[in-house]
């Protein structure tokens, strides 16, 4: 059996959804050890067991920025235990840990993966290129294979595993040279969350101004939808970064995705093109967003959206 390790960060006291997606995949590939970063506890560990972890290496970072100490501790542990594969998510801390760890071990990273499988002499992954038009199949040299997996590549499904064996993974003290987290700010979020909502409505540059994003909010409220945005309007400061859908922002796969004034840049498409039904409204008939839309409306968002909101109000 292959030995598969999965890095999971705690989110709001429990294993992150992304982590459980990876864990579900991992248990179909071999014996699973979870590297768990967070406060932990019986309930969290029981969840990890249920999803397939036989063993948990538990690390707490305190006020240290975790990447450097976790990479250092993992490197020693990997050298002694020799896992075949380490799965991490395409997420902030995961990317930091993977980058530092790979440089330390001198092995490659397969980034942005949407699928991963064991092959004769190692591991093979798939990742989308050119905005998802094509898929590259890649392999990495060195052991273990380090793979970063995009959110929502696999469904998180509990199994029937029992409580795992838990071992503490001690993190080295980097002393004065380490990075410290000195404060945390939670941006206020109203309504359904982007990653989980069954309906998502996103606005792009075609809205014309920050004020026009109000149309997106109004429609969102009406449909009980989460609201998102393209990188272009986040960079322009119209809406906070937390709303960004795409390569660096959130990956969403809702039942319905409505793109209003979104041209469909490569980096936006990779974050939403797997939505079940896509509706796009854009003035430019040649906008790339129409190539992934089930219903494309060539028109002005400032005309279509108010009428849509009014029609919904009248129902």
């Amino acid at each position, binding site marked *: 059996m292959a030995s598969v390790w999965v890095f999971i960060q705690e989110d709001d006291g429990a294993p992150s959804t992304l982590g459980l997606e990876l864990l579900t995949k991992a248990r179909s590939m071999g014996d699973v050890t979870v590297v768990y970063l967070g406060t932990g506890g019986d309930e969290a560990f029981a969840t990890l067991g249920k999803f397939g972890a036989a063993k948990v290496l538990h690390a707490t970072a305190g006020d240290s920025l975790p990447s450097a100490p976790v990479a250092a501790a993992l490197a020693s542990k990997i050298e002694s235990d020799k896992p075949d594969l380490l799965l991490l998510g395409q*997420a902030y801390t995961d990317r930091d840990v993977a980058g*530092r760890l790979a440089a330390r071990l001198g092995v*490659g990273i397969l980034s942005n993966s949407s699928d991963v499988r064991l092959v004769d002499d190692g591991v093979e992954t798939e990742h989308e290129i050119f905005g998802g038009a094509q898929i590259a199949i890649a392999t990495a040299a060195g052991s273990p294979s380090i793979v970063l997996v995009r959110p929502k590549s696999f469904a998180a499904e509990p199994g029937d595993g029992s409580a795992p064996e838990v071992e503490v993974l001690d993190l080295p003290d980097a002393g004065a040279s380490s*990075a410290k987290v*000195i404060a945390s700010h939670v941006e206020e979020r109203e309504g359904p969350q982007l990653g989980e909502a*069954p309906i998502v409505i996103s606005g792009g540059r075609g809205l014309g101004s920050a004020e026009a994003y109000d149309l997106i909010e109004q429609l969102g409220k009406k449909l009980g939808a989460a609201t998102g945005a393209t990188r272009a309007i986040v960079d322009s400061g119209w809406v906070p970064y937390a709303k960004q859908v795409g390569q*660096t922002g959130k990956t969403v796969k809702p039942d319905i995705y409505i793109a209003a004034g979104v041209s469909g840049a490569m980096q936006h498409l990779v974050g939403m093109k797997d939505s079940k039904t896509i509706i796009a409204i854009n003035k430019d008939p040649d906008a790339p967003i129409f190539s992934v839309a089930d219903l494309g409306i060539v*028109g002005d968002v400032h005309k*279509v959206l108010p009428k849509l909101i009014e029609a919904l109000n009248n129902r």
Partner: protein
Amino acid sequence: MKVVVCVKQIPDPATPYKLEEGTNWLVRPSEQVLDDTDRYGVEMGLQLAQANDGTVTLVSMGPAGNNQGVRQALAMGADKAVLIDDSDLRGSDALTTARVLAAAIKEEGFDLVIAGTESTDGYAGVVPQMISELLDAPTLTFATHVEVGDGKVTIHRQTASGYDVVEAPLPAVVAVTAGVVEPRYPTFKGIMDAKKKTVENKTLADLGVTPETTQTVESIKNAPERSGGKKIEDEGEAHLEIISLLEERKVI
């Protein structure tokens, strides 16, 4: 203060990208542009260097071509550039890139290294972290705000729910997100001055780095096509099409 900014020359994203037969490497024309996401790092570096009596050195790896991309960053105001171009670097992966950049940065000396979060053409998104490990420096990533003072760097680090304030002693590596600052447009004088600035070319031998392939694209396949899309022109009633599709999907 010595600021080093990592920049990348990439094929113009407005042109269709192609892969080379056989190797699956991205085809890189001699005319490349500065990766748009690097303009934020360059601007951040310029502002921090100005406030702290410092200099900005650009470090870049890849085919030099006509150096247009690097010149764009010099035109914004960077002092000089080091460009590592070597035929043995063709098809390099993230780790080789990080090893080469780290070696060049070490030779230059640094208090602060700034990079973008990920390149537009390759977007592995792990090179700054690898560089910091190789330089044995803290990694402060996904920065939406950066300040330097008292020998420390403080950033706002993007998180899933907001941001953390993270602090580390210099020297350090910071990876910035687009939007961290508003990049300036080069002035005419900046463009003229950039022509006189030094672009130092280095090879792998100069840096003593041996390239090693740690990841390989074995093959390419087409993604499954999305079928049955319908496109209509709005003549005042298109919102009704949306309503009927939402009804069909039983969400209203």
